[in-house]
């Protein structure tokens, strides 16, 4: 019972009740003692004092009675004398019954014996008076009775004095007792208060201190210290709580360990996967500090993982360009790829890598790091180079025989009079397709130049109105023959553009030629432009057949065809070259179109900035 907090508090209460009872008993005992002392003071001495006083009164009256007997009326004197004698004896007996003091008995006894003598002498006085007359009686009275009277009186006075002294002593005694009791009670009260206080504080502390230990334990666990055990060995409710708390934390620890274990397995798996990937991978945190480098990255960048872990990417790779690219990608989008590969030279061989950066989300959907994959595209680059070289070589090699074909057919066509109409037709077919072949070779060459970055660009300020005007003029004959209206809607007041004049003329030519091909008789082709956001936005819009949405991107690819709209007269490279030219100007090109509603080809060009 006393192990529980309830029991402990109850025991403190019981102890305090015991203390209070003790003080109460002691106080009652003291009061009793005091009462007894006062009681004695009144009871014991007061009777004796009263008796002594009355005895003095009685004897003094008897003395007067004797004088009355002698001088006035004998009968009355005797009667009064015996009356007062009775009274004296009553008080004497009272005094005898109430002997309290040491010498009192002796004094009373002497008073008693003196008084008996006094009464005896009064009898004698009566005899003398009767025998010898009043004169002898008076003499006897003066010589014998009066000294006895005085002796009795003094004895009575002694009784009085004795008791008065005793009474005074008793009073002093009572005062002393009350004083002592008071001090005693004060002392005991102080001791009890102190004891009560000490016991209360001690036990309260004993009860409360485990709560503090428990609180500290909870705080420690909150900070993640699951190993914390609360050391409370009491058998009360708090002890029970502490042991349950310890159970809970050990269960938590168990759970934590098993989850950590699972996480570690998953983490090791991920690391093993990353390490085994043949493309270089570098994982960085939000401060661009390296957190993981795989084998391939170690080889490619000639670094060792343990040397670069925790170091900034620039420091780790010794290359600011890579960092800048990664930073650009990271800041742009969640997953992004840079189209411009980085070049890493190793043993005098240039290797090309495409950087892909994927952010690592944490549980709050915030980014906790980035995985940078360096896709090795060296092989692709080599193939691209071979392809480009091949196209270039083939086109050059084709040029010389093409010259013969062109020259030959043209020379023959100069003199057709001697030919049959069949011969003339054949020559014309050769001439037409020869021309087509020249266009194809030229386009292929342009495209290979664009793709390999060897295409020259001569930027100069120019008026987009003038370029469009020139372009439309060169195509006006074709348009007229097909009864299509060409409209230059560009304002000559627009700001100037900063472009390669020939190429942009070629772009507009290509777009208008295309529009002419896919617009029916009576159609309208309109060129417009407006300056916005630092760019010139040029639009070539027709009201022709239009292009289905799924081809909007594809049409800018090489040799692409829109459905069954076979382009018999083109090379299939026109839009790819057009796009290449626009891209060379850092511009963009796209199409807005719906089948049956015509097409709107839009491209942007840089403005001339002083």
């Amino acid at each position, binding site marked *: 019972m006393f192990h529980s907090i309830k029991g402990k508090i109850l025991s403190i209460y019981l102890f305090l009740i015991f203390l209070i009872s003790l003080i109460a008993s002691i106080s009652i005992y003291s009061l009793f003692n005091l009462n007894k002392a006062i009681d004695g003071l009144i009871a014991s001495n007061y009777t004796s004092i009263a008796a002594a006083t009355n005895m003095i009164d009685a004897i003094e009256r008897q003395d007067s009675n004797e004088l009355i007997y002698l001088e006035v009326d004998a009968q009355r004197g005797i009667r009064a004398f015996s009356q007062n004698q009775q009274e004296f004896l009553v008080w004497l007996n009272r005094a005898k019954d109430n002997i309290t003091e040491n010498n009192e008995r002796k004094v009373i006894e002497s008073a008693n014996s003196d008084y008996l003598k006094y009464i005896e002498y009064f009898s004698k006085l009566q005899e003398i008076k009767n025998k010898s007359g009043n004169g002898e009686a008076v003499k006897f009275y003066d010589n014998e009775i009066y000294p006895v009277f005085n002796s009795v009186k003094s004895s009575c006075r002694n009784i009085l004095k004795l008791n008065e002294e005793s009474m005074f002593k008793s009073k002093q005694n009572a005062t002393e007792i009350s004083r002592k009791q008071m001090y005693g009670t004060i002392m005991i009260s102080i001791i009890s208060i102190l004891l009560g206080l000490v016991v209360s504080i001690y036990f309260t502390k004993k009860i409360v201190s485990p709560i503090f230990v428990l609180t500290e334990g909870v705080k420690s666990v909150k900070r993640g210290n699951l190993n914390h055990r609360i050391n409370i060995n009491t058998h009360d409710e708090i002890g029970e709580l502490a042991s349950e708390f310890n159970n809970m934390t050990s269960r938590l620890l168990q759970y934590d360990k098993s989850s950590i274990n699972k996480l570690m397995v998953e983490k090791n798996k991920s690391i093993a996967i990353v390490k085994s990937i043949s493309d270089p991978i570098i994982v960085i945190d939000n401060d661009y500090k390296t957190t993981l480098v795989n084998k391939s990255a170690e080889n490619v960048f000639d670094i060792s993982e343990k040397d670069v872990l925790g170091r900034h990417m620039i420091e780790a790779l010794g290359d600011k360009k890579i960092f800048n690219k990664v930073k650009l990608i990271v800041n742009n989008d969640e997953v992004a790829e840079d189209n411009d590969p980085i070049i890493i030279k190793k043993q005098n061989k240039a290797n090309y890598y495409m950087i892909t950066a994927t952010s690592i989300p944490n549980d709050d959907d915030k980014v906790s790091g980035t995985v940078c994959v360096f896709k090795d595209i060296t092989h692709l680059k080599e193939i691209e180079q071979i392809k480009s070289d091949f196209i270039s070589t083939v086109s050059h090699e084709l040029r010389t025989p*093409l*010259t*013969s*074909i062109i020259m030959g057919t*043209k020379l023959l066509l100069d003199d057709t009079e001697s030919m049959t109409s069949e011969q003339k037709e054949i020559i014309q077919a050769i001439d037409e397709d020869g021309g087509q072949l*020249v266009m194809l070779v030229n386009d292929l*060459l342009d495209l290979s130049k664009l793709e390999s970055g060897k295409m020259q660009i001569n930027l100069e300020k120019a008026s987009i109105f003038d370029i469009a005007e020139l372009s439309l003029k060169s195509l006006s004959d074709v348009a007229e023959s097909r009864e299509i209206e060409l409209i230059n809607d560009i304002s000559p007041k627009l700001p100037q553009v900063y472009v390669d004049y020939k190429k942009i003329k070629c772009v507009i030519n290509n777009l208008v030629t295309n529009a002419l091909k896919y617009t029916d008789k009576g159609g309208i082709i309109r060129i417009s432009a407006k300056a916005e956001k630092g760019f010139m936005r040029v639009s070539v819009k027709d009201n022709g057949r239009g292009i289905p949405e799924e081809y909007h991107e594809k049409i800018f690819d090489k040799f692409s065809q829109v459905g069954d709209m076979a382009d018999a007269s083109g090379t299939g490279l026109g839009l790819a070259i057009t796009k290449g030219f626009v891209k060379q100007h850092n511009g963009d090109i796209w199409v807005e179109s719906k089948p049956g509603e015509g097409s709107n080809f839009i491209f942007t060009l840089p403005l001339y900035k002083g």
Partner: protein
Amino acid sequence: MSSKILVIEDSKNISLLIEKCLERNGFQVFLAEDGLKAMEKVFEIMPDLILLDILIPKLNGLLVCEALKSNSEVSKIPIIAISAKTQYEDIQKAMKAGAEDYLTKPFTPDELIMFVRKYI
């Protein structure tokens, strides 16, 4: 007297067609199929114009051009370089070697005559 044009071209087919084309337009045509022969012929004929293919055997067309331009006797004869190469650098090289003009293959008879007429 019609103007004399020296055609330095290793492709027989092309030199034949150029010859026919120029003759039809009233020019007197002489042919040379490599660099060395060309050098001889220039001094022998003293043509009014030279059509020079860059890619010719024995002596490269660019070298022929430089050699002719550095000789005061023949340096005034205009030279039109002919090549299948269309790169900007190739044209630059020919111009640097002293060629007056640059004609890329393939070309039509009209284009050829237009180029020639610029100098004769």
